[in-house]
């Protein structure tokens, strides 16, 4: 790890002041689970880290009946939050499955949403890939068994955040603070495809911080996350799905279906959502929506199998959300 200076920001204002506009020079440090690995592998070489763990970590009811989660909240706090679990099962289920107990104890909500991709070409210094300013994506004709089946490149990462998927499904908004003040962005507008932003995965500017996740009042929404991991003890998911079903009695009024670990961003599929509208959930309708969810998949040379796994994740997330 390259040497760097360190700022312990007491609050949001200090943190913003300590950040800077140039990409990669000054980075916020939360749980460190992602950032320190990047630095040890020389993928990130900041001159300064700004500790943002002292920023808001509260998980609190919002006036509109929703929930406001400070980005410094740890994953273990979210996973163990009874009220959040009642209101947003999809989110809390995802938080509980992140990494390992040690990772959930240190890792934060903000860190999880902003972590960099785990693509092994990105993470290994030897490969000058697109994301690092190189001229090619090594996954295209390389080892792409864990890469994207949606998106079409030019970079074929999958987004690594477990929380991003339910956040999009639940219609969350992210509060962002920066030198010019604060703004709010819909979760689904927060993440950016590589053709729009190759060197980052979000709309966050280098001198901005994601400070809060704002969830709308759940109303009659039933939600669930289902993830498929190979190694049960600790692994990145092969595919996940988060589903939010806005129920009208036993029928679905509207659905939001988002897949994770299949594309460079949380992958929302309106086709699958439409397949559920007005329907009662059973194995058959769930399967139809799951088929629609992966109909547009364009797998690479070595990840055809992920289509089937993503399909299964969607089907099971729908059934789980419906309590079946």
């Amino acid at each position, binding site marked *: *790890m*390259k*040497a760097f200076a360190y700022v312990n920001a007491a609050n949001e204002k200090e943190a913003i002041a300590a950040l800077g506009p140039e990409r990669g020079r000054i980075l916020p440090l939360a749980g460190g689970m992602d950032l320190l690995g990047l630095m040890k592998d*020389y993928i990130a070489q900041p001159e300064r880290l700004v500790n943002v763990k002292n920023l808001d970590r509260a998980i609190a009811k919002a006036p509109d009946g929703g929930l406001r989660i400070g980005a410094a909240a740890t994953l273990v706090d979210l996973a163990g939050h009874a009220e959040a679990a009642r209101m947003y099962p999809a989110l809390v289920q995802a938080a509980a499955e992140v990494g390992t107990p040690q990772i959930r104890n240190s890792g934060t909500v903000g860190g999880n949403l902003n972590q960099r991709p*785990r693509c*092994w*070409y990105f993470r*290994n*210094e*030897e*490969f000058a890939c697109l994301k690092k300013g190189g001229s090619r994506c*090594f996954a295209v*004709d*390389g*080892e792409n*068994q864990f890469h994207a089946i949606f998106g079409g490149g030019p970079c074929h990462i999958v987004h690594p955040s477990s929380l991003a998927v339910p956040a999009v499904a639940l219609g969350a908004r992210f509060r962002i603070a920066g030198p010019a003040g604060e703004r709010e962005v819909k979760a689904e507008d927060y993440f950016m495809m590589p053709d729009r932003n190759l060197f980052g995965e979000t709309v966050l500017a280098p001198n901005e911080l994601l400070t809060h996740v704002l969830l709308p009042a759940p109303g009659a929404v039933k939600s669930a996350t289902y993830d*498929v991991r*190979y*190694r*049960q*003890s*600790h*692994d*990145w998911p*092969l595919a996940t799905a988060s589903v939010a079903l806005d129920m009208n009695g036993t029928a679905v009024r509207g659905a939001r279906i988002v897949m994770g670990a299949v594309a460079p961003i949380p992958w929302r599929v309106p086709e699958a959502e439409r397949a559920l509208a007005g329907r009662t959930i059973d194995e058959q309708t769930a399967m139809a929506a799951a088929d629609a969810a992966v109909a547009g998949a364009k797998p690479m040379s*070595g*990840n*055809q*199998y992920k289509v*089937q*796994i993503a399909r*299964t994740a969607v*089907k099971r997330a729908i059934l789980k959300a419906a309590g079946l």
Partner: protein
Amino acid sequence: MASWPPVADRELLGKSIQRIDGPEKASGRAKYTYDIVRPGMLFGRILGSPHAHARIKSVDLAAAQKVRGVKAALAVVDPGGEVNYQGEEIAAVAATTEEAAEDAIRLIEVEYDILPHLATVEQAMSRDAPQVFENGNVTKPSTRQDGDVDTALAGATHIVEGLYHTQVQTHTSLETHGGMCEWDGDKLTAWVSTQGINASREGLAQTLKIPQANVRVLTQYMGGGFGSKLSGDVQVAIAARLAKLANAPVKIMLDRKTEHLVTGNRPSAYAQVRAAADAQGKFVAWDAQTWGTGGAGQGAGFPLPYQVYVWPNRRQVHRDVYINAGPQRAFRAPGHPQSCFITEVVVDELADLLKIDPLELRLRNLPDVAPNQQWRKYFPIGAQKIGWSTRHPTGDPTAGPIKRGMGCASNRWAGGGNPRTRASCEIMPDGSVVTRIATQDIGTGTRTLVAMITAETMGLPLAQVQAAIGDTDYPFAPGSGGSITVGSISPTVRVACENARDGLFARVAPGLGVEPAALVAKDGRVHPRDDASKGVSWKEACRQLGTASVTGDGAFDRALATVGTSGVQFADVEVDIETGITHVKKIACVQDCGMVVDRLTAESQCYGGIIMGTGFALFENRILDRNTALMVNPNMEWYLVPGMSDVPEIDVTIVDQPERGVVGLGEPPVISTAAAIANAVANAIGARVRRLPITPDAVLAALDEARAGGTQ
């Protein structure tokens, strides 16, 4: 004549005895090589090649040497030299902090001529491949043959044919390779994470061109090796050279990435097999073309078919394939898990073809039973433990995505002892007892075993004796590989202890008015065999030694050891056919290892082997980028070894054979697990995965192929 005590008299041997160094390890007090700190110690680091194949034009250390805290730097490769795999050593530095050493390493400027490389066996074997290795990328075929394979195959009624493959597995020892080297004039003391302190001494002396007598290697605790730490390691020699240059002790422990790249692996295996049985289910012929890679210039041999079942006609034509990857090293039962997987899967396929229960087919083709070939006895025990009678034919007919299946496989291992093993036991006038032997405890419990045999021989409680190991100043013992440690040292320690004890008896006997041969040491006393009341306490007996200890030397005694183990394993698995994910529910293992010394640690070997075998079956895979030959998963994030939730219920049955001598158990339990799991997966899903690891993509592909009518 040395002998083991009669079974009925054994106080410790064969019982479940806690490790004597358990408290040291559980408390964190145990000092591993990684933990050794010496006054003025520097941290060394090695620059490895970022390329799979390159010629070194120049190495410039100037910038590195200027980093504050750097005390020494050296090039390991001369200009014009080549590196043949990623991570191969190029240069090294030593500095006062790890951070400074790392900064310095990154400032070393190396000019490379990039040379053509080979990343896969397919590339190496292709007609247009550049010749990267001097004598060719692929060795000439070597043939092993028995009987008349062609005739037997021509007349066979039931033939299975297929391509089988196992992956490259890295040892992933938790303590990385490395050492702490300290010079005193021309004498070197090296703390090394090694499975063979004597081999390490030999390797260091040879590399550094100094007499072996000038080198002392110490290994009190070491964090796993599994075969990868059997020889003198280059990084320790580099630490010694840096220490000389800096005139200060230098410690080098590899980082995790380098550990994956350069410290060995289990070679891959490929086999194009034709195997035949007659209508009665008797195997008639086995024919295989085999190949595999052990990396840069290293062999990848494995015996095929696996030598358990009788194949009257058999042939293996093997070629080693070289690629630009880290060289293989011995890995827990070299060749066997690969060979066992391929053979046992083929056996199951023949069973399906013949519509014979796979267990029954195995029993029909076992050899006549010998003392170390007890499979015929063990298969039924394992079958009962796993519930084989409830096994369905291939393809779980149950509705729903979760399919259940069972499979089995067998193993054998030779073990044995090294006849040059020596030990020494000293009984001191105050009653202290120390047995010294230059063996090492690699986690198997060797230290405990030395103490147990000593205590048993002296009739003392375990806590009253000491085992001094892990120091080349002690009498010679071999490296801990090939499951020969327990077979080498148990007889030798027993002999040394008997000799020391007999020396004590000779001093005590006159006072008791009996012949020394009439004495026994038991329950903390020395007394005539036929009159316990007449003796003296151990302390009193030792006091009669006056001021001089009595020492017994021991040489290996073949009569106390034996050769040959056998075992079987059964697997019960669940496979989710909508995700391709395999979950191992249970493994039942029946295993012998001759005379059991410590039942507790023997069982642990079985648990450990099975868990490592589960990793080989499902997860582990060194993945090289096919275009650059660089490893994409040199970490513990994508190189997956089993964790707690991946471990099945494990039912271990150790068959004690107290009438036999001691034989090792390190290797046998790892051999059959992957084969048993693979057979269970096929039994569950009704489709055959012919390669390891059995990843979700492999399972889903096998299911797709089966649906398309491709298999079975």
